[in-house]
């Protein structure tokens, strides 16, 4: 099995084999997201407390989940590129960082928009939003370091180390922000008390989450293949491909 995994570490193998995945992912994400949007934003019931504005949840929650897991995926790729020195892992880190940053921004923006009807202001320092903001800064840090250090291999390694340290610190940051929030929580916030969601609500939510993930992997795969071609532009297989 190791040998099979090892094959995927070669840019040429990865490029040629992953091409087949793209139409699959595109179709899946298109269908699932489309269905989820239709179900969640149009058909599903309005919340008895929040009215129609609860529908932002169908975008905000998947984005928030994806923001965190994309950071974890980036850090795992970074760890792989550091330990096994795989160039494809380094390319993976480079290509996923902007996607993750944008998803985090989306989560922040939708969270803020959701806050207006719920709490009356566009920004509120609750634990989750604050953690998401810090997550955005973690992404921005990795992006900034990569940018400043140039294209060399050592630049990639420094940014990878930063990503791994970020992942290790993430639980500590989340815990401390949680404590900070529960201490200063004004009495009117009752975010912890939510009635159980009916299927008509968590159904579309689940669909949106799956659809978001499918779209995320699609975007990452396209970017990664593009980056691999860019990096290996002088090698034989790319030259041959370009001649066709």
């Amino acid at each position, binding site marked *: 099995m190791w040998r099979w995994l090892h094959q995927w570490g070669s840019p040429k193998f990865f490029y040629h084999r992953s091409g087949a995945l793209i139409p699959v992912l595109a179709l899946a994400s298109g269908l699932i997201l489309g269905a989820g949007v239709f179900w969640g934003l149009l058909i599903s019931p309005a919340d008895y407390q929040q009215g129609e504005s609860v529908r932002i949840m169908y975008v905000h929650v998947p984005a928030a989940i994806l923001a965190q897991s994309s950071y974890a995926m980036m850090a795992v790729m970074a760890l792989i590129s550091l330990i096994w020195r795989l160039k494809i892992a380094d390319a993976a880190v480079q290509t996923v960082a902007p996607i993750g940053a944008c998803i985090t921004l989306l989560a922040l923006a939708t969270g803020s928009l959701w806050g207006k009807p719920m709490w009356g202001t566009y920004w509120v320092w609750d634990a989750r939003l604050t953690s998401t903001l810090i997550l955005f800064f973690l992404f921005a840090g990795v992006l900034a370091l990569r940018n400043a250090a*140039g*294209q*060399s*291999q050592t630049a990639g390694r420094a940014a990878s180390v930063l990503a791994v340290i970020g992942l290790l610190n993430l639980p500590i940051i989340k815990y401390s922000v949680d404590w900070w929030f529960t201490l200063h929580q004004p009495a009117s916030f009752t975010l912890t008390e939510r009635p159980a969601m009916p299927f008509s609500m968590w159904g579309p939510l689940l669909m949106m989450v799956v659809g978001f993930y499918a779209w995320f992997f699609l975007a990452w795969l396209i970017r990664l293949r593009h980056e691999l071609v860019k990096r290996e532009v002088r090698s034989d297989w790319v030259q041959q491909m370009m001649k066709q």
Partner: protein
Amino acid sequence: MLQIESLSCFRQDRCLFKDLNAKVLPGQALQIVGENGSGKTTLFKILAGLFEEYDGRVITAAGSLYLGHRYGVNDQLTPVENLKFLLKLNEIQLAPGLLMDALARFQLSAELDQPCAALSEGQKKRVALARLILTSARIWLLDEAFSALDAPGRAVLSEVCQAHLAAGGILIFSSHQGIPEFAAAAQLRLEVGS
């Protein structure tokens, strides 16, 4: 003994050198020859252990001392303090008298009490070179060590290097100017884009 086997290095998509082979025995010197940008400094860094992204093997049988373009002399400390620190990095602790003798050999006896900021570039380099006299490293990696020195300074450095070779050490150096005492040394030529 130092041996290089099939050493190749790529930096930022450029091939610096490919399939280098060399073997240097105790008492021998090797000169790395090449124009600016041909990868000399990277090769020195690989030999010193500072750079690890290469293919091939480097086998060293003894500890090495590396002096690159920037030689580790801090402006706030005096020459004696700098020398003491550089030697202590290799766990060598000596009496101040010996340090001053080494500095004197490189014609630095008057300015020993001032911080190195008051010295010229050539003088600072000689502070770093004084370490060569007192070190116990068997392999010396001197990248452009002869540059920025005046003729007496180069003469002292040549003497020190020759004494090192006579005692069974290894010297690997690069120099844009020819060094007459080492004209007969083996050469490793790096071509740009080879």
